[in-house]
């Protein structure tokens, strides 16, 4: 530790820390534009110039490491002269038409100019004008406002791993752009909007919708993947306007995925279901809640005599409270068929137990030195886990993949096995690993062959001090998922690696906690049909892996009850009752993420029309069936009840009774990242991106 004196105040710091961080830690503010703690240092804006004793010129605080005894003045005449000069230079070519700029009110340039700018400009020449570029449906550009801080450029190179933006031209002609007109396609692209200190890059769907000072920020959690990214939702008069990241170093750092940012558009989708609806003789009629629920109870009752005829399909993004109440209600009615793992078809490993979690904290991923990803397109499925993995890779971690071909990686892959048969490749790697550690091969592996790549991957895992196996959504969708689990866990053991069967959705972990004891067989229900389906928060024809079968099962069922936020044509065809539920910001509850953080959030937006949070609907249904214990007044009471159960994940013990004789290659099933849930499917901005083209079933 060294001691630095800033404006007369003695501050302790680690030697080599940048002056700007040290000043921040002591709450001494130094103006800045190009500096960002998550990006490399560019030192190009020169706004952070301060006065360091002994230096003839003012030095940039963002690029000056502290030394013991350093004396700094951020407010001396020399420092202020430098800061004001830079401010003046920044403003001469800036439009200064803040009233028509979308960044107005939350602009770093505006803020700093209030402190360091002059009222009257001595610059009387014509200002620079830069042509705008269309970079796609998510980001609006207004490049005349750009102050060339290169944060967006560095973000692309360093974080997103795609050099989509760059600087071309010199001097005043230096422009930030894509060079050849194209869209910015990173799944993390929206973060550039937050990074851009001015109104050069703004949120396109949100453009001109509201002013920052009209907005109220509410902390909550993003419900699209198992990261559980922390976000703020900005509302105006109770209406959701936009989403921005909420910093949480342990989870999402300062980033969010584009899915988390832009899918809030879906709240205002034209097909929101706003009133309960019931179909009678082929005709839908809207009715009030009490009537609709009465109809629901009456229609359901005849089937309760044989509850085996009923299956409940539940969104893996449902809150913990909703999952719990679904199970409580269902079990009280004798229904045991409940499933949320809709993108899975092989459930035979359930017998060993279920553990879909990350075997470490997200931050620890950065310290891994060898990783094997099996059947997972992490970049698109879990963008912020991928971001951690990318950091590890840049630090020297070897990342190997066994995946279907054609996936687009944004990090360096050491060895890549392209395959349609994850099982056979995994068996080969396991055999290679067994040989490397001189372990006897099981008889089941006798016929398995392996090549140099398999050996290299096995060797990488073995020699890694912190090595990890990760299974993704593609593996989970495989017809041989249970065999993959068996082989992978064995490989993890042999090579001394951790093993993570990654949860995909925002409450996969929570739903598994509550539903693990329900033995389920979704594939069978869909293939052979059930008389009654109750769907909670999903569109089975899009959310199930076996989509065609799901649709047929719905069409052939005698009764389909949908608790849904959306009123789609296909549901109208097969459903009998549609009950409108609140989603996202209109709801309160808890989500359990990939590293088992229980994150509760509050309700702060008014639900559309008559829509109600699903937990309330379930509670009323409980009452209407005269069931005990459905008298909750809020989600906190439900949560308390769940906590009292002390649920925990049991580590599965996969038996390696492998039968590899019947392995057939399976066509891979990639879930397009902008089709993963009903909200994402209803964000026009996301649907206009290349990632969504050709893949969204609603398009």
């Amino acid at each position, binding site marked *: 530790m060294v001691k630095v004196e800033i404006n007369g105040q003695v501050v302790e710091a680690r030697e080599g820390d940048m002056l700007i961080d040290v000043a921040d830690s002591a709450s001494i503010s130094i103006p800045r534009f190009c500096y960002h703690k998550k990006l490399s*240092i*560019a*030192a*190009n*804006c*020169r*706004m952070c*110039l301060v006065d360091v004793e002994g230096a*003839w*010129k*003012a030095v*940039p605080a963002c*690029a000056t490491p502290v030394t013991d005894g350093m004396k700094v003045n951020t407010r001396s005449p020399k420092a202020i002269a*430098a800061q004001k*000069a*830079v401010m*003046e*230079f*920044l403003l*001469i*070519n800036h439009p200064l038409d803040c009233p028509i700029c979308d960044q107005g009110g939350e602009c770093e340039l505006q803020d700093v100019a209030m402190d360091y700018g002059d009222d009257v400009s*001595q*610059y009387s*020449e014509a200002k620079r004008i830069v042509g705008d570029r269309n970079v796609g449906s998510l980001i609006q550009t207004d490049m005349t406002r750009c*102050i*060339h801080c*290169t944060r967006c450029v560095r973000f692309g190179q360093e974080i997103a791993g795609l050099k989509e933006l*760059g*600087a*071309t*031209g*010199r*001097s*005043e*002609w*230096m422009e930030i752009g894509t060079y050849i007109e194209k869209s910015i396609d990173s799944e993390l692209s929206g973060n550039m909007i937050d990074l851009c200190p001015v109104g050069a890059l703004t949120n396109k769907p949100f453009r001109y919708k509201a002013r920052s000072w009209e907005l109220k920020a509410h902390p909550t959690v993003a419900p699209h993947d198992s990261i559980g990214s922390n976000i703020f939702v900005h509302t105006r008069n109770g209406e959701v306007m936009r989403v921005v990241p909420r910093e949480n170093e342990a989870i999402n750092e300062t980033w969010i995925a584009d899915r988390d940012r832009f899918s809030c558009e879906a709240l205002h989708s034209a097909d929101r279901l706003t009133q309960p609806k019931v179909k009678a003789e082929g005709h839908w009629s809207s009715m009030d809640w009490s009537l609709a629920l009465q109809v629901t109870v009456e229609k359901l009752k005849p089937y309760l005599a044989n509850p085996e005829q009923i299956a409940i399909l539940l969104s893996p993004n449902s809150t913990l409270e909703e999952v719990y109440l679904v199970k409580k209600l269902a079990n009280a009615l004798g229904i045991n068929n409940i499933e949320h793992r809709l993108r899975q078809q092989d459930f035979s490993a359930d017998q060993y137990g279920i553990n879909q979690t990350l075997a470490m904290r997200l931050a620890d991923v950065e310290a891994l030195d060898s990783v094997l990803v099996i059947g997972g397109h992490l970049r698109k499925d879990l963008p912020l886990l991928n971001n951690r993995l990318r950091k590890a890779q840049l630090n020297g971690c070897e990342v190997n993949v066994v995946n279907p071909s054609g996936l687009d990686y944004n990090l360096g892959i050491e060895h890549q096995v392209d395959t349609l048969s994850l099982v056979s490749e995994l068996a080969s790697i396991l055999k290679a690993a067994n040989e490397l550690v001189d372990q006897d091969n099981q008889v089941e592996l006798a016929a398995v062959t392996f090549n140099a790549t398999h050996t290299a991957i096995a060797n990488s895992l073995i020699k890694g001090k912190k090595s990890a196996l990760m299974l993704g959504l593609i593996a989970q969708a495989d017809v041989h998922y249970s065999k993959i689990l068996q082989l992978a866990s064995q490989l993890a053991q042999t090579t001394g690696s951790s093993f993570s069967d990654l949860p995909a959705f925002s409450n996969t972990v929570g739903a598994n906690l509550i539903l693990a004891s329900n033995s389920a067989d979704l594939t069978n229900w869909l293939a052979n049909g059930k008389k009654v389906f109750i769907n909670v928060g999903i569109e089975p024809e899009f959310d199930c892996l076996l989509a065609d079968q799901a649709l047929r099962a719905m069409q052939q069922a005698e009764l389909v009850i949908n608790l849904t936020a959306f009123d789609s044509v296909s549901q109208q065809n097969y459903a009998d009752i549609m009950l409108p539920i609140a989603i996202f910001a209109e709801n309160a509850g808890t989500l359990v993420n990939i590293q088992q953080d229980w994150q509760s959030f509050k309700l702060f937006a008014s639900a559309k029309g008559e829509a109600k949070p699903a937990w309330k609907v379930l509670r009323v249904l409980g009452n209407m069936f005269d069931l005990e214990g459905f008298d909750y007044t809020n989600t906190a009471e439900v949560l308390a009840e769940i906590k009292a159960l002390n649920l925990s994940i049991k580590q599965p013990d996969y038996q390696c009774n492998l039968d590899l004789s019947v392995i057939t290659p399976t066509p891979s099933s990639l879930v397009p990242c902008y089709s993963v849930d009903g909200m994402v499917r209803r964000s026009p901005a996301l649907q206009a991106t290349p990632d969504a083209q050709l893949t969204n079933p609603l398009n």
Partner: protein
Amino acid sequence: MVELNLCCYRNNHLDKSWDIDTYISQGGYQVWKQVLSGELTPQEIIDEVKVSNLRGRGGAGFPTGLKWSFMNRHSPGQKYIVCNSDESEPGTCKDRDIMRYNPHQLIEGMAIAGYVIGASVGYNYIRGEFWEPYDRFTRAIMQAREAGMLGNNILGSGWDFDLNTHQGAGAYICGEETALLESIEGKKGQPRFKPPFPASYGLYGKPTTINNTETLASIPMILAKGGDWFAKLGVPGAGGTKLFSMSGHLEKPANYEIPMGTPFKDLLSLAGGVWKGRELKAVIPGGSSTAVLPADKALAMNMDYDSIAKAGSFLGAGSVIVMDDQTDMVKSLERLTWFYYDESCGQCTPCREGTGWMYRVVKRIRQGKGRPEDIETLKDVSGKITGRVICGLGDAAAIPVASFLQHFEHEFRHYIDHGCSIFDRA
């Protein structure tokens, strides 16, 4: 009588001076052989270069022996020696003639420098517009390879060294050493923030030494004739001869290699004096980035660092721009401010924004639309750039503006007051 062409240009007068046979006939590659045979150790070479009092010829005048000593020859990993032949400073054309007429001396210098710092690979970054020099230098490399002076296990010494050329694309900023490295790496030519310096983080992140063409081409002669010989050619503050590019209103504009410390007057007469029998008005002694001096100060100075500094300017790259008494200083400054405006890399705010501002104001004055406050604005803006930028270009852009106003403010005032130049008075 001033003695000419003692070092870098010593072979220029010979027939086919660029040919390896000519070079060898003049004792070329002898030092390189000595070095390879172990007769001269890296430390001895550094000591000799220190004795020679050679200061970097790229403009900053940094002592070369000291720069080389920053490199750890024995540290593991790749190291690079880079020669800066970007030569784009207005007024400079001295390095061009080394590559045209004496390329092998540069190759020998680079090979020795590489050996000293432990670099087995060298790059020569050559200004994009230099076609003939590029061609000559590239051919010279091929000849040197054929002659076994470059390549693997050179002359059985166990030492490898090879050279590459890299052609610039017409940006002045790529002469700044870290922008040059970025450019070799295939990136946009933009200076890096320093530290780290190239000696620790250079080309492709590896330890790198960058020297000017003239600096490196001086090495073989220093080692052949001794550091002392070189030092004595010059003055106490700087040894050796120096190449001066004499341009402007001269009877015989050309490059002249003369001993450091030669009086400017003598250099002027070497170049035939001011053309058309006119009077001297002003001199920019070291390239456009150095302050302009009025005639009296210039005529009193000697061509070495200290003397020029005392006169109020800088020796820079030795690019002497001579202006006669008919020169319109406002027009001259307009052209110079355009140059820096055009050539700023654009990454840091004061230079990107300030160079254009200065150009526009000078241009307005020259167009006869100047305002009384414009001179203050120019002084203010140039002052606000200085010391607040990443690289020397920003500071350099402010120097002509400040110095032209310091010595010739009345010409600017005349434009502002009368809408025309002092020559239009009648």
